């Protein structure tokens, strides 16, 4: 048991709820950025003896998830949005209730998983599944393209949490590769977003209905 680790994980899960209940796009982006900064601290807390691997993973995460991605998204938002509300398909209360149910299920589900003995007490696994679930919820219930990118980032954050259990399997090269893909991905999404705004005068994906059977 590691009290500071648990504290950080609780904050990460609280930020999930904040994202689900918040109505302003800028607040949602800032919450994801804060989550990124918190995630950057986790490698240091999980893997006690300090190694270059841990330092690089932490700094890389801070640079990409904590700084670069929120900055890219904020810039994209200033570029494109006229109305800055989130515009969900379901109400905020319903979102929060679903998020709560998902987090509860994640806790129950993780309790039943055959975890390695050293992880049996860890809160990392339930936090990871709860965050992955939140990511999916945001992806599927928010109409604006920019909030869909945020959902994708939350999903990636959840996967990152699970990856913290596996220091040996993920050499620094691969970990940085994953971050680079994420950065380039959001960058390209930002460009596409810009074109969408110029072409359709909106980034509401509900307008995306010309291509269907």
């Amino acid at each position, binding site marked *: 048991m590691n009290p500071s680790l648990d504290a950080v994980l609780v904050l990460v899960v609280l930020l999930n709820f904040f994202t689900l209940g918040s109505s302003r796009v800028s607040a949602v982006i800032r919450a994801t950025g804060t989550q990124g900064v918190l995630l950057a601290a986790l490698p240091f807390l999980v893997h006690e003896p300090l190694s270059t691997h841990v330092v690089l993973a932490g700094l890389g995460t801070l640079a990409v998830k904590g700084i670069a991605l929120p900055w890219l998204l904020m810039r994209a938002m200033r570029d494109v949005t006229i109305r800055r509300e989130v515009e969900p398909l379901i109400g905020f209360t319903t979102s929060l209730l679903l998020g709560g149910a998902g987090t509860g299920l994640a806790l129950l589900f993780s309790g039943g998983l055959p975890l*390695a003995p050293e992880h049996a007490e860890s809160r990392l696994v339930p936090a990871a599944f709860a965050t992955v679930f939140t990511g999916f919820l945001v992806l599927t219930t928010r109409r604006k393209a920019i909030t869909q990118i945020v959902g*994708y980032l939350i999903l990636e954050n959840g996967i990152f949490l699970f990856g913290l259990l596996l220091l040996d*399997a993920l050499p620094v090269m691969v970990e940085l590769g*994953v971050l*680079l893909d994420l950065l380039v991905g959001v960058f390209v999404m930002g460009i596409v977003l810009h074109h969408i705004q110029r072409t359709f005068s909106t980034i509401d994906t509900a307008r995306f209905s010309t*291509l269907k059977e």
Partner: protein
Amino acid sequence: MNIGPLDCVLVPLAFAILAFVVPSNRLRPLVLPAGALANLAVAIAALADGTRSTAGGWLVLDALGKLVILTVALLFFFCALYAPGYLRVRADRSNRQLCGGLFFQVAMLSLVATSHHLGLLWVALEATTLSSAPLIYFNRTPKALEAAWKYLLICSVGIALALLGSFFLAYASLHGPHSSTLLFDDLVANAASLSKPWLHAAFVTLLVGYGTKMGLAPMHTWKPDAYGEAPGILGAMLAGGVTSGAVIALLRLLAIMHAAGEAGFAQPILVVMGLVSMVFAAVFMVRQKDIKRMLAYSSIEHMGVLILGFGLGGLALFGALLHLICNALTKGILFLATGNLHRAYGSKSTDVVTGALDRVPISASLFLVGFLAITGSPPFGPFVSEFTILRAAFASDHFVAGGLFLVLLMAVFLGMGSTVLLAVHGKAPPETATDAASADTPQLTLPIVGLVLVVTCLGVWLPAAFVQLLEQAAASVEGPR
């Protein structure tokens, strides 16, 4: 000559950089055939060598990797021959992204094919998604934009799931006496000690993740949009090249399942997934007016055929590996010929495209040949591969799967045939201000003829060395028989 795995990646990467730095929009397309020829030469030279590994076992050039590299290189070679003629028609827009992006895509696919570290494989496969998305928007239409967005978002989310699945796989290895790893060879060697529940979870998650990237139903929704709006060359490379990258990722996973003695868990899932994809394709193919979207559903069907073959195993796996290359090259014929029809009529809907045999006889004939080949008519390659899978299904007493396979192939033949016949037969509409004459030029038809020759060759004569390569690749998945 000694060709290592890294050479297969670095050669196309060097040409990608060259394509980006060439300043002239008129000369840049010529880099494509030159680079594709060099890439093909490397891929063929690599065939002769044994298995070679570098970078501490991270990059290995094995039989399966060689097969995918050869498939991509052949397809890319003919697409690249076609490209200068096509880009001359599209001289009004910059082709820097398209030329550089295609080389980058090929380089990343080579990295996917040679990568024996599943984390690195993931990074490279995601890189193909990111590099393809801007290319889908090459034609700068609102529909292309919508398609690019859906492709980018759905494939990124799908592949994010694949990353989670890879982590599950690494976690499964934590339970044995060994430390957690994502090195393919270590996972296969220690497969017996992998934790079964985690291995099952990894299999399902990876199948959904990489299945999204392959375009298996029901995760296929991006495919008709992306293939429908992409330029013909890119459609061919997506349908034949990028899907092969996702296929090899799934084959590596299947090899681990076989080594762990869990084939009994994996194979029925694959068979069902394969048949479901074929059903989706057969249903949506009916009355499909848009030719390129029809090709996308055909691609979904053939991804289903591949997965079905993997699930049946044994001889069917051999057939499916042969089908991988046959399908890729035949998709090349269809997408490039459709590109010609599209330009000749200024439309890809059969409301406008009729009587193509009158308007553009060569392209329309090639399109018809491509249709016959992809639906499994002799004497083309897909006939042999599909027949092999069918024979294997009945020989291994999978009568239900084999029967459904046969019925679905017929249904797809009928559905696709009605659209194709509508396009090529009948009376052509009065000539509008399109460049019909330019569609049947040798530059835009000879590369397709080349593909037809290769696909016919695969149907009538398989070189012994190639059969051996396929057998080695199948053995690397299921273990020596």
